């Protein structure tokens, strides 16, 4: 099982989960247990990636489900040329791009406001050991909202690089494999994404980023 995915909470993982080739064979054979294990292993990271790209929990939940449906349908075409996780994230990125285009068109015609973070106290994890005071937690959420809104406003091609690198903390090698872009292009887009984000966040905060 890849180190970056959530282990099963239902006891030790079966042996086939440790070997990706065996896991894929079971998936191709439509083994239900293997597919459930796959969803459980990747659902958090896929949801986190999609929600940061799209900025709405409801849309992201719907999209994350669609990602796994596509994985189920297309697993027979997976040739093992990349890691299974890379292939899954590639599907997630492509579906998110399509959904973003659709939502942008819909918003421009309907003027829908972006979803705001509206969570009951205690829903979110404290950001750091120091951030336990209610005012600090509230300030932390407000800052998250500002940064999230700025991410959604970035140009889509810049946004994917920034989310994969700065939010999901992926290596350049992984980003190149997922996006299919040359490393130089990834670095350049990331640099421009950060510059755009800095400008947007500083405008919203009314002060410089420290």
């Amino acid at each position: 099982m890849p180190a970056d995915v959530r282990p099963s909470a239902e006891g030790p993982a079966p042996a086939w989960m440790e070997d990706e080739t065996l896991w894929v064979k079971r998936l191709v054979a439509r083994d239900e247990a293997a597919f459930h294990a796959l969803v459980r292993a990747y659902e958090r990271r896929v949801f986190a990636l999609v929600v940061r790209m799209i900025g709405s929990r409801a849309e992201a939940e719907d999209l994350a489900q669609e990602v796994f449906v596509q994985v189920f349908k297309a697993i027979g075409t997976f040739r093992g040329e990349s890691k299974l996780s890379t292939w899954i994230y590639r599907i997630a990125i492509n579906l998110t791009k399509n959904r973003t285009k659709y939502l942008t068109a819909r918003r421009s015609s309907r003027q829908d406001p972006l979803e705001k973070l509206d969570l009951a106290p205690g829903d979110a994890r404290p950001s750091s050991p120091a951030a336990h005071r209610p005012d600090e937690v509230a300030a932390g959420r407000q800052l998250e909202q500002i940064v999230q809104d700025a991410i959604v406003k970035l140009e889509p091609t810049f946004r994917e690089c920034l989310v994969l690198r700065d939010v999901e903390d992926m290596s350049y090698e992984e980003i190149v494999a997922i996006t299919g872009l040359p490393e130089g292009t990834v670095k350049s887009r990331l640099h421009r994404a950060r510059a755009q984000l800095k400008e947007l966040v500083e405008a919203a905060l009314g002060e410089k980023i420290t």
Partner: protein
Amino acid sequence: MSDPPDIDAHESEKVRAFVRRALSNGALVHPPPDILRGVQRRLRKNARDELRGRGLGKSQSRQAYVIIAAAVVLLAAIAYFGLLPLIR
């Protein structure tokens, strides 16, 4: 969006650190939804739709059965009455 002012490598790293710090609260990400249940529901629905598309859905297969049965009875009747004069 117009091109923002360029930033140097040091500032770029500062923005990365700021983003990671700001999003570490994870209010948008937590609690994660149960994706598996939704996926299972969609796959079941897709399978049902596919069966319906092939004309093998419950109500359609019953209809097809009745039509085929009626056609067989009709063919048997035609054969019987067609061959009856030859037998006599």
